[in-house]
């Protein structure tokens, strides 16, 4: 049995590879073929096959094998990648993703999936047996090498052959790693012509000891090519680690052959015969080499490029290009190596510890202030600054760019527009906006729903668009930006917008609003987030079942976010999701009410004013006139039913959330405080106006005010009050 942790890594890696593959496929489908991208797809398929093979997950190996074989032909130029083939591969990718999903859940794929896989394999294999579409004109693109006179050290004899010589001994694991030695030979023929190939079967043991899944093969190849050594060498990148590979350029020194013969496991005479058979060495040359066996070729090792130039086999520009490419490969490796996969739990642990550190730091700070020790206060100030920085970088570890999530929608838009027969462009902006990983993970589903909804109901069919004077091609935009301590994600389309009357009609029909109620446009639009609401005339495969928008809203609220909608009829609509940046630590503003302390998220605090200075009319106790603006306010003392004496000077903390503002009346303003949010137990779940609690430096517990929840509650209470008034009036 495979240990779970390895399997987990396998699944994670496969998913990443599949993501890369999908991205590449979408590019290939759109644009002409780029060998780099085809290579990326091939590599992804290849790696998945290899690791699936290691875990013995046979159905994945079989399936990827089919895909890989076709890709290999595309890569070698036998097959042209076109949009039909790309579409087939996208389907194959989906199937693979499903298979990996089953692996992750630890179950076998159902028969249906199996059959689908078989059908895909058949489709893929059809490409394998098809006739070669075109032969690659590779040789013409290869750097031409000028054959020049050769000047060499006199002491070392040079073989006369014009051919490269390749000695390959494959490692025992080559088959199990999902590779076929002959595929390298085929690859090699794309660089030149194989003059002679001798398959070395000497290592195959007698029948009883032979393991048919272990590779015992080797090749001696003489090869006619004008390609440079790097190009030939690159072919063997996949097997380099466990194979013996020697590549000798044309006219190599006899001593190099001698070294080769020494290194190879077979007997000298047998090897010599093979080399002669390959046409690499003449019998005389072989004799010479074997005779001077004792003399060791101890030339200092020099970079191959230097040697090649000196031998006038390759022109300097070619070397330069090769070196540049090598550098690129190195750079890529470097950036790969600088990434570390970390368990999310460890990260959470770190953040939790940083949180405790902040609390401890605040405690020290408090004691220093109480004791009035200037030195200590100074040092705690430095300390708290550092802790703050540690907090920021710890949190930054969890931050990921939203781009990856957005890019996934390229695929969704492609699929859905095909399904709907609409032509829709996706425009992504703000992809580098960062937010917490947990939030990113959870936002995917609601976003998908919104995007599908926009495409299905928002954007009209091409004919309707033209008749409305809009371009036939619809546009869907995804945008993200930071605003007031939260991240805003917008999904907008240039479709028909929402029909106000229809929504209102439906809402009245469903009993969501009473007839004759005066609602603002915005309120009407946001009715679509109510449970069981759908205005679609027909239920389509995509949306319109009346479940969905309310689920979207619930999901977003669970992330302490909000969602609202703007629409202009005939011009499109925009859905705006507002989410907190992180779920763990916030900058808080402490206020005192009676003996208790409350924390208000600082991001939401606009200003603090004195109540009496602005609320001239104390009677109704609901609104104050803030510089001509009507501001509803609420006494926290009343809201949380805090006992104790009223203070003389009450203060108002003006908070803003989204586009709404409200005032919270408190007794004392106690300043800023870094707050580690600790969740409340389920018992308090129904209390919407409290988002969690924190521990102050003094060890006291302070409740964190959930401003959006509080605002909602204020509004709700007011509605109830109004209703009672209306009812009383009747």
């Amino acid at each position, binding site marked *: 049995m495979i240990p779970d942790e390895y399997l987990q890594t396998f699944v994670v890696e496969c998913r990443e590879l599949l993501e890369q593959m999908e991205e590449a496929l979408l590019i290939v489908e759109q644009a002409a073929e780029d060998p780099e991208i085809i290579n990326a797809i091939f590599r992804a398929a290849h790696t998945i096959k290899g690791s699936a093979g290691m875990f013995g997950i046979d159905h994945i190996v079989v399936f990827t*094998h089919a895909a890989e074989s076709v890709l290999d032909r595309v890569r070698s130029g036998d097959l042209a990648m076109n949009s039909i083939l790309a579409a087939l591969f996208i389907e194959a990718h989906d199937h693979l993703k499903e298979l990996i999903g089953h692996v992750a859940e630890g179950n076998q794929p159902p028969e249906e999936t199996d059959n689908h896989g078989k059908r895909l394999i058949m489709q893929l294999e059809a490409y394998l047996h098809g006739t070669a579409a075109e032969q690659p004109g590779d040789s013409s693109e290869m750097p031409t090498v000028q054959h020049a006179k050769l000047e060499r050290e006199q002491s070392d004899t040079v073989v006369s052959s014009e051919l490269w010589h390749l000695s390959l001994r494959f490692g025992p694991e080559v088959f199990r790693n999902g590779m*076929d030695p*002959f595929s390298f030979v085929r690859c090699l023929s794309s660089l030149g012509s194989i003059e002679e*190939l001798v*398959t070395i*079967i000497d290592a195959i043991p*007698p*029948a009883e000891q*032979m393991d048919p*899944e272990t590779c015992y093969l080797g090749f001696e190849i003489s090869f006619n090519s004008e390609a440079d050594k790097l190009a030939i060498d690159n072919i063997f990148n996949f097997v380099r680690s466990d194979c013996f590979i020697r590549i000798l350029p044309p006219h190599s020194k006899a001593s190099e052959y001698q070294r080769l013969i020494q290194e190879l496991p077979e007997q000298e005479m047998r090897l010599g015969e093979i080399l002669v058979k390959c046409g690499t060495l003449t019998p005389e040359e072989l004799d010479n080499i074997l005779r001077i066996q004792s003399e060791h070729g101890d030339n200092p090792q020099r970079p191959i490029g230097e040697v090649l130039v000196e031998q006038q086999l390759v022109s300097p520009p070619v070397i330069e290009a090769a070196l540049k490419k090598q550098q690129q490969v190195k750079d890529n490796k470097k950036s790969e190596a600088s990434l570390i996969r970390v368990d999310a739990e460890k990260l959470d642990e770190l953040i939790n510890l940083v949180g405790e550190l902040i609390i401890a730091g605040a405690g020290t700070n408090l004691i220093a202030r109480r004791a009035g020790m200037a030195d200590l206060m100074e040092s705690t100030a430095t300390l708290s600054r550092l802790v703050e920085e540690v907090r920021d970088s710890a949190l930054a570890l969890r931050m990921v760019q939203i781009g990856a999530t957005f890019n996934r929608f390229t695929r969704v838009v492609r699929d859905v527009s095909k399904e709907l027969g609409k032509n829709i462009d996706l425009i992504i902006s703000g992809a580098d906006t960062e937010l917490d990983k947990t939030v990113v993970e959870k936002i995917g589903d609601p976003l998908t729903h919104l995007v599908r909804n926009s495409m299905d109901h928002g954007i009209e069919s091409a004919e309707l668009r033209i008749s409305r004077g809009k371009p036939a091609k619809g546009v869907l935009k995804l945008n993200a930006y930071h605003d007031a301590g939260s991240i805003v994600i917008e999904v907008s389309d240039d479709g028909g917008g929402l029909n106000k009357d229809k929504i209102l009609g439906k809402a009245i029909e469903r009993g969501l609003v009473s007839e004759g109620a005066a609602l603002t446009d915005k309120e009407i639009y946001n009715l679509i987030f109510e449970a069981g609401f759908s205005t679609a005339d027909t239920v389509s495969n995509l949306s319109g079942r009346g479940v969905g928008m309310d689920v979207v809203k619930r999901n977003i609220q669970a992330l302490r976010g909000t969602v609202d909608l703007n629409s202009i009829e005939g011009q499109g609509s925009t859905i705006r999701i507002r989410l907190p940046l992180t779920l763990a630590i916030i900058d808080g503003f402490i206020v005192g009410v009676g003996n208790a302390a409350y924390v208000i998220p600082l991001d939401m605090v606009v200003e603090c004013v004195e109540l009496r200075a602005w609320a001239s009319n104390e009677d109704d106790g609901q609104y104050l006139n803030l510089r001509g603006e009507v501001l509803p306010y609420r006494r926290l003392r009343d809201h949380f039913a805090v006992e104790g004496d009223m203070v003389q000077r009450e203060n108002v903390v003006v908070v803003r959330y989204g586009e709404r503002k409200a005032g919270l009346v408190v007794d004392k303003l106690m300043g800023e405080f870094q707050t580690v949010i600790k969740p409340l137990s389920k018992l308090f779940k129904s209390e919407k106006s409290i988002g969690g609690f924190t521990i102050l430096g003094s060890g006291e517990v302070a409740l964190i005010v959930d401003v959006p929840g509080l605002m909602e509650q204020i509004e709700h209470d007011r509605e109830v009050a109004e209703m009672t008034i209306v009812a009383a009036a009747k």
Partner: protein
Amino acid sequence: MANENNKKQPSGPIAITGELTIYTALELKDTLLDGLAASEELELDLSGVGEFDAAGLQLLVMVKQQATVLGKILRFTGHSPVVLELLDLSGLAGFFGDPLLIVKPIREGKSI
């Protein structure tokens, strides 16, 4: 992949159909060695081989060598196109010494 092994007639050919690759090598090793043990003269029909890779090739080499060790006669017949292609590429056609492209074998050639 299916193997039709006619064990009642010791000299009857064994037909390998479908894949002769790394995926089937383990199974086929036993099938082929059993077949070889059961008769003095064995014929392997390769006409139904749809896929053939280095592992398959290596397997055939092993069986051939085993036959030589046991002093038995082993013939490969009806090489399918994929088999021919790889034999040609590997340069091992001479090692097997079977007449290629001919459906009915005439005589077993000599191996090195």
